């Protein structure tokens, strides 16, 4: 009996002493976390995608609370509403930034781009890209093995089994940029979503000379610069035989689309074109 009592007493003493030590230490080394970090964290979507450039939502919250401005901070998943909420918590004002969306700049479907090889190695774009340029004549185009699909946390990009090209689901894409980093061919770009999701872009990354590009893919940009000449807003640049539309300058007039001899400029979500008066007149005559 005595043994049990002694044991209990000893344990109590050890417990009391340790709790005293722990209390003193916890008081001495107390860390005061800014309560706003918790509030900001609650306002964030908790996707932990890293699209903001910080390691997860927690990293973003601590960084934005520590910083004095809203510059350089943007949660692509939450978008403008989230940023407004955070700004309210921190007593700052959020800049209005435009919503962006991922765009795949390759239109080399099976019918446009004849296959020259068969790849049956590991089903991973990065591995295939390290081996060679791809199973068509174009070494810049989509390999269709779905590294972008694997990288997407929001189920917003899928390979279309008919075209073997990735397609972005507009409602789901948060422009976190994971697919941009995953694509070894650098085909995916974040572009302005545009009013009513209307966008115009050059759906090609082929930097070969015109003739070679055209031979390997029917819808390749051949760098003919017709679109550049027709653009009234100086929004199109041609570099390395490849046209690029600067989305900050583009006013969506669509003049470049019909002049492209290879149909490599794509327009999305526009209403169907009205036939111009001249053409109607011709048809009537």
């Amino acid at each position, binding site marked *: 009996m005595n043994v049990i009592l002694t044991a209990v007493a000893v344990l109590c003493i050890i417990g009391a002493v340790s709790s005293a030590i722990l209390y003193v230490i916890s008081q001495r080394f107390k860390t005061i976390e800014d309560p706003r970090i918790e509030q900001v964290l609650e306002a964030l979507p908790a996707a932990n995608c890293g699209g903001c450039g910080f390691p997860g939502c927690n990293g973003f919250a601590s960084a934005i609370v520590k910083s004095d401005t809203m510059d350089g901070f943007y949660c692509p998943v939450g978008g403008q509403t989230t940023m407004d909420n955070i700004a309210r918590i921190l007593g700052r004002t959020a800049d209005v930034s435009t919503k962006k969306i991922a765009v795949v700049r390759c239109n080399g479907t099976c019918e446009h781009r004849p296959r*020259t*090889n068969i790849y*049956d*190695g*590991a089903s*991973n774009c*990065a*591995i295939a890209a*390290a*081996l*060679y*340029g791809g*199973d068509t004549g174009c*070494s810049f185009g989509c390999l269709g093995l779905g590294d972008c699909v694997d990288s997407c946390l929001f189920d917003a990009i899928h390979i279309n089994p008919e075209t073997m090209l990735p397609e972005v689901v507009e409602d789901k894409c948060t422009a976190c940029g994971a697919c941009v980093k995953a694509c070894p061919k650098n085909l995916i770009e974040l572009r302005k979503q545009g009013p009513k999701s209307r966008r115009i872009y050059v759906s090609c990354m082929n930097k*070969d000379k015109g003739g070679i590009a055209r031979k390997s893919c029917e819808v390749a940009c051949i760098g003919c610069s017709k679109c550049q000449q027709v653009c009234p807003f100086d929004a199109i640049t041609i570099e390395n035989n490849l046209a690029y539309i600067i989305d900050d300058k583009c006013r969506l007039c669509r003049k470049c689309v019909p002049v492209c001899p290879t149909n490599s400029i794509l327009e999305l979500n526009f209403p169907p074109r009205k036939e111009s008066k001249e053409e109607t007149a011709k048809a009537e005559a």
Partner: protein
Amino acid sequence: MLKTFRIGGIHPAENKLSAGKKIVNAALPAQVMIPLAQHIGAPCQPIVKKGDKVKVGTLIGKSVGFVSANIHSSVSGTVNKIDKVMDASGYKRDAVIIDVDGDEWEPTIDKSDTLKRECNLSSKEIIEKIAGAGIVGMGGATFPTHVKLTPPPGLKADTLIINGVECEPYLTSDHELMLEKAEEIFVGTEILMKAVDVKKAVIGIENNKKDAIARFTEISKSYPGIEVQPLKVKYPQGGEKQLIEAITGRQVPSGALPISVGAIVQNVGTTFAVYEAVQKNKPLFERIVTVTGKEVKNPCNVRARIGTPIKNLIEIAGGLPDDTGKVISGGPMMGKALPNIEIPVAKGSSGILIIPYSEAKRKAMKDCIRCAKCINVCPMGLNPTLLMDLTEFQIWDRAEKQKITDCIECGSCSYTCPAYRPLLDYIRLGKGKVTGIVRARKN
């Protein structure tokens, strides 16, 4: 008891179909495409332009940076253009395209076949000559030889190892070269010994080349300091670190260069190129290529000028067989499948292997059954299945700790895997990523 390395290794079917076939000279092509990046390191700067007349051996690409090698014209004729051409990397890269006209050599080159043994040059002069001739490691890695012969300060080699292992199945180009140019290789070895100032050289040859071992042992009697070491047949014995261990018993520490254990390794093909460069003033513009395959009518060893399209070599071997699954540049273990047969021969093309469709087709991957066969065969003592998973899930810090950068890409793991898992494909990807991360951290 034959020597070999201690851990791992496999013994794939040798299939040396072209063994014993005399080297034939390939006819000059009508046009050559000489890539400006035929070595590890920075691509060359072209120093010729359209319309320039060149002779055989004229310098056409000048090396830029320390790790780089000169490139010479392999034919005489007129530069047609400098354009992007698909090379063995599978991508279009800059190449000098020359229209062939006759076969006029630079007058400085000694075209005779006579053996020239004496070499009175100093170590520095020899290395300069090797650098000038644009010699790279001819076993396939294409690392510039003059860089390898210039060890970092404070380190000194005591043994020169000549790699006559040729452990890749099918390939016989080194074997045939050893039989036909044995004396020249010995002189080349002496020159290399002088260049790195060592008194001892060992030529390692696998025991499946008994004729070469016999001939080399005979010749070595008149070359003091050079000995011949027969080795047990085991893949990947031709790997630098494996060969050093097999011959000297020393293990190269992880991440270190072979020089840290006092060894320098050179391939027999490189040694022969060194002989020709130093004694005959002949830059590296041709090499021996094995053209082989089970369906190939006439497997052979061809001496081809750099820049010859490989389809010309396939013609010499009897044309492309009907049953062609893949055309591989190099051997079946470490070689690389080519997207077409217009690709030019480069300094690192040791072989062209044509494999039938049934063998080329990769079997569908199944789940890992944790049999640990890949761990058993890995000559670097790594855990391939773990490295593959770490790469797949992009856990780079653990991959680095598991020494993914030590992988020599020999492919023993993929070869042995009963579930047909593409282990090496993933490990190679992860190795590249981790190397990039480590380099970024250092800068």
